[in-house]
């Protein structure tokens, strides 16, 4: 059995203590914030009609769980986000691949992609409603529009950054551009694709919420906009909290995928 020196034991102990303190402090901040919020609402320091309170939000959530309506709204938003996210990833990999195969085309399209990427995408949502109608497809397209152009540009840039010598190796082994793409560019770009996914999942959620604000009858975005119009602030704040949790869970799922890919690539 390996013998651990006292100094190393001390180092490990201080490391564990440091991690414990960080975790406890994170939890304490949340508990303190919720406690102060509830206390301020109960004592009338803040108007609970405007600012709601943790207890009221919890009760509101529970009532929506009981009538099952919350699952419908969460399900719709999740479905639209995941579909738009999957389409963004597929479409951006395909587009970046085509641009890599045809450098002249990429040179021609570059200014258009830059302009489309810089465009505030929320401005497109009303136009999409007019063009495509107030339906799920429009919301998925709205979700895609926020992420897709940046994703194409990022992936294409990462394709271009792959070592020229690695590509030369493929040619020296008698390969062609297709082999360079499948044997080098795509496998070497897996970390870039994953980091692009991490950004895109959040962006798709933003796009879907924008779409639901103006063209939906279901979903968390609809719940937010409806509750603000009828002054049901419990619903509104609860929806925002659920959105935070969804964003965090989706990000963590991609982090797990990233860890798996790091072992493979």
């Amino acid at each position, binding site marked *: 059995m390996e013998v651990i020196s006292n100094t190393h034991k001390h180092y490990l102990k201080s490391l564990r203590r440091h991690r414990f303190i960080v975790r406890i402090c994170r939890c304490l901040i949340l508990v303190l914030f919720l406690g102060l919020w509830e206390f301020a609402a109960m004592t009338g320091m803040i108007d609970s009609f405007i600012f709601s309170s943790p207890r009221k939000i919890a009760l509101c959530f529970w009532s929506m769980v009981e009538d099952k309506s919350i699952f419908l709204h969460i399900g719709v938003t999740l479905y639209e986000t995941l579909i738009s996210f999957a389409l963004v990833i597929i479409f951006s990999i395909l587009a970046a691949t085509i641009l890599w195969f045809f450098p002249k085309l990429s040179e021609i399209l570059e200014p258009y992609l830059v302009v489309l990427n810089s465009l505030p995408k929320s401005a497109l949502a009303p136009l999409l409603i007019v063009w495509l109608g107030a339906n799920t497809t429009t919301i998925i397209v709205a979700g895609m529009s926020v992420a897709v152009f940046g994703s194409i540009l990022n992936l294409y840039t990462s394709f271009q950054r792959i070592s020229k010598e690695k590509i030369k190796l493929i040619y020296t082994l008698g390969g062609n551009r297709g082999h360079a793409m499948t044997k080098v560019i795509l496998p*070497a770009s897996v970390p870039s694709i994953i980091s692009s996914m991490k950004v895109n999942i959040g962006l798709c959620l933003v796009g879907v919420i924008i779409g639901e604000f103006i063209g939906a009858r279901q979903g968390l975005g609809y719940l937010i906009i409806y509750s603000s119009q009828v002054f049901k602030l419990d619903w509104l704040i609860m929806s925002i909290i659920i959105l935070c949790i969804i964003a965090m869970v989706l990000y963590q799922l991609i982090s797990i995928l990233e860890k798996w890919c790091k072992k493979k690539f």
Partner: protein
Amino acid sequence: MEPLLELKHVSYSYHTPEGETAALKNITFSVAPGEFTAIVGPSGCGKSTLLSVIAGLIPAESGDIFFNGRPLKESSTNIGYMLQQDQLFEWRNIYHNVLLGLEIQHMLTAKTKQYAKDLLKTYGLEQFENSRPSELSGGMRQRAALIRTLILEPELLLLDEPFSALDYQTRLSVGDDIGQIIRREKRTAILVTHDLSEAVSLADRVIVLTKRPAIIRQTIPVFFDLDNDTPLNRRNAPEFKYYFNQIWKELNDDGSD
């Protein structure tokens, strides 16, 4: 004996919006089967460009290249190319890195897979076939890169400063190792290097190029009368200094460093 490779008045220039840079000018030489030729010259003179032209990766602007008596039109699998760095892919283990050329050539069969395993065993990498490249030393990585090239059984092997990324001690031992492998496998090879000792210790003939645009300044035959003619033994032979000084003189007469 008919040469395996023949270059006749080969020239090549790089073109940029700023202008034209002549890299190779009127290069003429031939390589016999089984011969080990080294090409030396000042940094940036066009040595690697010459290898790329021979490999068919870039077309010669003028002149002719004949391989086995036939014009060389495009990259041929009969020509193996070893790059300055091993370029092993981290997402593949050593065995699958070695198989890369076979996969590209659609030559993956039970027989070729077994040949890959045999080569890994012969060159001491058997126990590392499931390892990732980062788990291997620089020398082992270069050996794996050589196996990846040799597995396609190229008639001509092009070595583009293959030891330049290694530290000096590893460089000597890997140079000795790979030199012996090439001799044992009776391969024809062209080595491009800026290291004169490496050229003398490995080659049967050293071609000295001038600074850019590269033209052939001198061709120096190298012969060592040794019972066991290995790169490391050559370095200890009395003739070694003579050949080294001769090449050094040719390079310095060129006015380069």
